[in-house]
């Protein structure tokens, strides 16, 4: 705690905010059929959905890193109208209802879509209903979080580090890999965590674009949604497992990335 005292009204509001997080979690914990957790954990469907969720969300994060960091670089280093347009475009998926995003993805990559149609006609490839589609949907929805975080990091970065590196004879690539990227590590990490968390919880765009098939596109949020209708207990158990696994990965990664 710092020396400065936080005014009481702010503390009260902070408490209310915290409650908003804690109460649903408490509800989940209290209502959880703990005796079923073991069985659910061993059930093959659970493993399938969980494995798929982790695979898709981590792949989506990797893709977002590969595409999002360069995109953030372009955003941070352009100015004027172009930048405003690019920025609005990149952040669009954040304000778009995910289901609408899913429809938009269908219109782009579907069998009748802008890119999907030539792809299907030429190679017989159909993107929707595949695991790749689930990854695309998650990337689409989650990448803006990474881009915004990295762009913020780039804006806060002292450009003289890069200038010094160039003056020392480093090529653009070397500057990026050895100076820009390492200095951006905290921003990239927080962006990647936000992105991954968003991808892991993705539902709307995935169900619309990729459909729901166990083992192929049925990630945990989809499985939870289906189970909620018929087996609410199982849904709670599945949610808890997802929560625990996410926390474990987050803590593990945090130490590795930010460990001093």
């Amino acid at each position, binding site marked *: 705690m710092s020396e400065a005292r936080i005014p009481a009204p702010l503390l009260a509001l902070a408490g209310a905010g915290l409650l908003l997080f804690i109460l649903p979690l408490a509800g989940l914990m209290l209502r959880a059929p703990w005796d079923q957790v073991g069985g659910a954990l061993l059930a093959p469907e659970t493993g399938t959905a969980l494995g798929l969720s982790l695979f898709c969300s981590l792949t989506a994060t990797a893709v977002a890193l590969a595409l999002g960091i360069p995109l953030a670089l372009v955003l941070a280093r352009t100015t004027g109208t172009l930048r405003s347009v690019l920025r609005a475009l990149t952040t669009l998926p954040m304000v778009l209802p995910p289901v609408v995003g899913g429809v938009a993805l269908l219109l782009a990559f579907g069998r009748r879509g802008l890119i999907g149609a030539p792809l299907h006609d030429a190679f017989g490839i159909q993107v929707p209903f595949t695991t790749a589609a689930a990854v695309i949907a998650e990337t689409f929805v989650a990448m803006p979080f990474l881009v915004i975080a990295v762009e913020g990091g780039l804006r806060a970065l002292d450009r003289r580090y890069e200038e010094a590196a160039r003056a020392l*004879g480093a090529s653009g690539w070397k500057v990026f890999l050895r100076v820009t990227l390492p200095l951006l*590590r905290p921003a990239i990490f927080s962006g990647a965590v936000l992105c991954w968390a968003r991808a892991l919880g993705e539902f709307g765009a995935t169900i619309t674009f990729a459909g729901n098939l166990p083992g192929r596109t049925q990630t945990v949020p989809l499985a939870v949604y289906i189970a909620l209708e018929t087996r609410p207990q199982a849904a709670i158990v599945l949610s808890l497992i997802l929560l625990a696994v996410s926390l474990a990965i987050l803590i593990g990664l945090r130490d590795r990335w930010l460990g001093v």
Partner: protein
Amino acid sequence: MSLHADIAVRRNGFTLDLKLDVDPGETVAILGPNGAGKTTLLRALAGLVPLHGRVELDGDVLDDSATGRHVPTERRRVGLVFQDHVLFPHMSVLQNVAFGLKADATRSAREWLERAGLGEKADAMPRELSGGQAQRVALIRTLATRPRLLLLDEPLSALDVTIRAEVRRDLSRQLAGFEGVRILVTHDPLEAIALADRLVILEQGTVVQTGTPSGVTAQPRSRFVADLAGVNLLRGHAHHDHIELDGGAVIAAPDSGEGDVFAVIHPRAVALYLSRPEGTPRNVWRAKAEDLDLQGERVRVRLTGEVPLVAEVTPSAVRELRLDRGAEVWAAVKATEISVYRA
């Protein structure tokens, strides 16, 4: 190795327009007030900002807007040293120095550090260094790449006054062993005089004066330089034995010739009296003491009146004259103490 630059840089309503020639082995100090365009000049020479005109270094054309040639920063072989070291915080001192080196980088970097007496800091991280050490490492990092042109942007100004002298000595020693062209940007005249062979005074984007440190301070051509040299600078029109100042006052100065001139009066040449002095001095004006400032053994008195001047007197004179803020005095300057030169 020599540098010939004739460039214009336009940025947000500000224009830098100058011609600069630096001879092999010469250290040029760029002096000027804040916002004069000193840093912009360095960045332009480093290839970091687009410019109009031509930059030629060691016979190579680095920039020529006529032919569209522009050599990117990383291929110019220019060294850039910033005000605050700008060492890469995620690399050790050794890695920082090795960054710009090609073959045998680590061993060579260690040698450079050892030569500079910083060998034991090789594995330290930049945040573990003192300000002076960090700046010395930054200089080594740049010198190790053997640049043809060394650009130093106020290399000492971020340092504590107590260690500035030490780092300045180190800098001076390092510069002596460097063969390329050296350009130093500073607003500290002491730094400029200690390190530079030649001063270039930059004001509002243009060169107002250039010359050796003693030459420049002997005949200031701007208020900025006069302040640096600590002298009174007056400007007016000479008519042989007197000068009509721009403000309307007339001062006597023999053999001033005819035309626009600068007149420099050293503050020590300004004598102060309680009543109008009798005798030789022909330049006597009423004045009011606006401000008194004790500087070492002397007191600088800022005078307003017909001719605004700064006088430098001894503390005992201040007591005798009962000089205080707002005091009315007579200021006298011998005509022979006025140095006059063409504007």
